[in-house]
Every structure is written in C-alpha cells, then in structure tokens.
C-alpha cells in the first residue's frame, strides 16, 4: 500500500513522465530526435554534476564512515557477475559469450538510475551519504573485468577475442568517460569544497532535475526502439531482467544497513546493485566479446531492467529500506 503510493508518486514525477513521453514518441513514429551532441552534452553534464556534489559532500565525511560501504560495493561488484553467469548458463541455457556479456552488464551499474534515485530521494525529503557517487565509480568496473575473465577462461580457443582487443576493452573501461567525469567531479568537488560548489551550483545543482528530464526523454526513445527485441529475447530474459534486480536490490539495501549507511544511502546501494549498465559495459563487451549479441544484453539492460527500476524498482527498494530500518 505505502509502496504503491511511492510508486505512484515516482511515476508522476516529470522525469519518469518524460521517459514515458519518449516511449510514446517512438511508438507514434514522431520525427522528434535528440541530436547526438545534445545527448552527449547532457550525459557529460549529469556525470560531472553528480561527481561535484558528491565530492563537496565527501569533503565533510570522515573516512571511517566510508570504508565499510566501499567494501560492500566491491563485494557486490564481484559476486553479482559470478552468480548471474551461473544462473544464465544453468537456468537460461544461454551460450558462454552471451552469458558473460549479460553478467558484465548486471554486475556493473547504471549512472542514470542512480541519478534518478537521488532525485527521488530529494523529492521525498530523504537524506543520504554524500560519498555515494564514489560508490558508483567503484561498482562500475570490477564486474566487467570479472565477466570478461570468465568468458576468457570458458571460451574455446578459436572463439577467443584477439589479445589486443581485451587490452583495448580494459583501457576503455578504466579511462571511459563515465568514470573519468564521475571521479573527476568528485575530486574537483573535494578540492574546491562547498564554496566551489556554491559558485557553480546555478548550473550543476539547481537545473539538475530538469536536465535529467530531458535525458530521460531520449532514453525513453532509445528503450522504446528496443521493445520489439524483448519478444525475440524470450521469457527467460524478461524474467531475469526483473527478478535479478529485485534480488540484487534487496541484498544491496541489506548490505547498506549492515555497513552502517542511512536508509537513503542503503536505498542507493540497493539501486546500484539492481541496476544494469548500458554505457560502460556495452562498449567494453562489444570490443572484447564481439560474438555476444547486443540485441540480448542491450535489450535486457535498456528495455527491461532500466524501465523496471526507474518506475517500480526505486520506490520498491526504498520501501524495503523503510521496512528494514523501521523495525
């Protein structure tokens, strides 16, 4: 009941409604298109903004508070790809390359889902730890590396990717723009402190929800173009894309609780665990595992899990946190 009310409130936010508008735009075959440069500008903005805010908050956080959640995050990033791979292979009967590819995506993280969660919590007046953007950066990388290693160990030799494309993929992940902007923002926020943040707040703090609205309009259009592939992907993947996030979300919230985070912070850790990457992971996987099919992993991540988390997941994980922290 309360959860439903949270879902309703979340659904009626301008951000989520813009996502729905983007879906509609594609369905009615509108000529609306977001120019690629605008998409890129928005994503640079959102990542840097998140980093800046997190960094300025980190400037006021004692390190003792931070290390437990950081460890929990690394644990999640290592465990999720492992068990996801097993589930995909055993239950889903999916081939090695595609199972590893999907494991990489679900072990990594979606920055926009994280951003939407911040907006949701802000809207609900719930506070959370300022170092959470750092957790995003921590969670992004390990799962991708682990999943690529799994593929490397399990694939027959002739199907293995060229050495140098593995190296390139690794470089892509570590120097990728999402990590660079997130961590770069954090460091800038940390060094320039609250005074520095205040200087740039009229661009990087206040219009943030509005920019997210525009970004989700585009994401709605992209997701919608992939809805046709959901049927092709089959029932197993549809289930996987919903059940695993819920599982990971609950585990994440619980780990947040155990490592001393607040209810808001635990919700965020839940969302991070539940979300699937669609920027860093696809780029790396495309290079290192070309035989895996984007119409499986991108469809699962973008057309199933992302909308689910955005609309249902975020309020759900928050409700779980309320329950855990409440009692």
């Amino acid at each position, binding site marked *: 009941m309360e959860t439903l009310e949270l879902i309703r409130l979340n659904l009626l936010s301008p951000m989520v409604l813009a996502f729905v508008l983007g879906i509609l735009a594609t369905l009615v075959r509108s000529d609306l*298109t977001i*120019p*690629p440069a605008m*998409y890129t500008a928005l994503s640079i903005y959102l990542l840097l903004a998140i980093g800046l805010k997190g960094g300025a908050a980190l400037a006021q956080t004692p390190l003792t508070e931070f290390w437990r959640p950081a460890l929990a995050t690394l644990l999640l990033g290592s465990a999720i790809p492992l068990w996801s791979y097993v589930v995909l292979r055993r239950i889903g009967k999916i081939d090695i390359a595609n199972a590893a590819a999907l494991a990489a995506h679900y072990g990594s993280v979606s920055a926009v889902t994280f951003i939407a969660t911040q907006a949701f919590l802000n809207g609900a007046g719930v506070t959370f730890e300022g170092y959470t953007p750092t957790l995003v950066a921590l969670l992004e990388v390990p799962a991708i590396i682990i999943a690529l290693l799994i593929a490397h160990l399990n694939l027959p030799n002739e199907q293995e990717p060229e050495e140098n494309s593995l190296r*390139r993929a690794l470089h892509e992940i570590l120097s990728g723009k999402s990590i660079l902007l997130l961590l770069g923002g954090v460091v800038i926020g940390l060094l320039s402190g609250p005074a520095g943040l205040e200087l740039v707040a009229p661009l990087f703090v206040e219009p943030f929800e509005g920019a997210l609205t525009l970004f989700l309009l*585009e994401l709605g259009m*992209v997701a919608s*173009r992939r809805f046709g592939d959901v049927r092709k992907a089959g029932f197993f993947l549809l289930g996987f894309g919903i059940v695993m996030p819920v599982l990971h979300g609950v585990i994440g919230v619980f780990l947040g609780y155990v490592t001393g985070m607040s209810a808001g912070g635990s919700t965020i850790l839940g969302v991070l665990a539940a979300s699937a990457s669609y*920027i860093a992971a696809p780029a790396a996987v*495309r290079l290192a595992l070309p035989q895996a099919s984007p119409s499986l992993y991108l469809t699962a991540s973008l057309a199933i899990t992302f909308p689910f988390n955005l609309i249902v997941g975020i309020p759900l994980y928050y409700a779980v946190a309320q329950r855990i922290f409440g009692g």
Partner: protein
Amino acid sequence: MEIVSLKLVVIVAEAVLEHQLVSDLNRLGARGHTLVRAEGEGQRGMRVGGLEGGNIRLETIVSGEVADKIMTRLASRYFENYAIIAYQSDVGVVRGNKYV
C-alpha cells in the same frame, strides 16, 4: 596536372570500432584518413547516434596493394561479428606519392 590512379577505401562501421579501425589502417600502410559521423541501416538493424553511438564513415586513399590488405583484414577480423561494410573504388589524385 598529372593525375595518378589510386584506390579509395570506404568503411562504414559501428562507432565503437573507431580507434581499432584507425590503428589497423595506420598499421597496414594508410598515410591518412577522413572520418564522418553517420547513421545507417543494414543487416544488423538501424543505427542512429546518441546512446547507441551510430556509425562512422572512414575513407582512406591508398595504393591497390594496401587496399587489398585492408579488405583482407576487415574480412577476417570484423565482418563476422560487427555492423560494418567496406568498398573500394578508383580515384585520381595529384600528389601520388603523398598516399603511398
């Protein structure tokens, strides 16, 4: 104006391959290239810019020999698993030795 005949190789491929293709070209003997952002449609579905990155259209002027090497490399390394096409044609240039 002495016009020398060379090969123009055009590659259209998914954007994620940009750096790999460029370094392949350089390694195989191309002395330069020109790149344009593109959209497209083929066997592997529609490709537009934004989140999914769209396509790139790479063109390079090379000797017939290098053109062959490039085509061979593309066929063995990329054709099977990536959204990519390549074609070659004859073009005439002025400073023939600039490209070989």
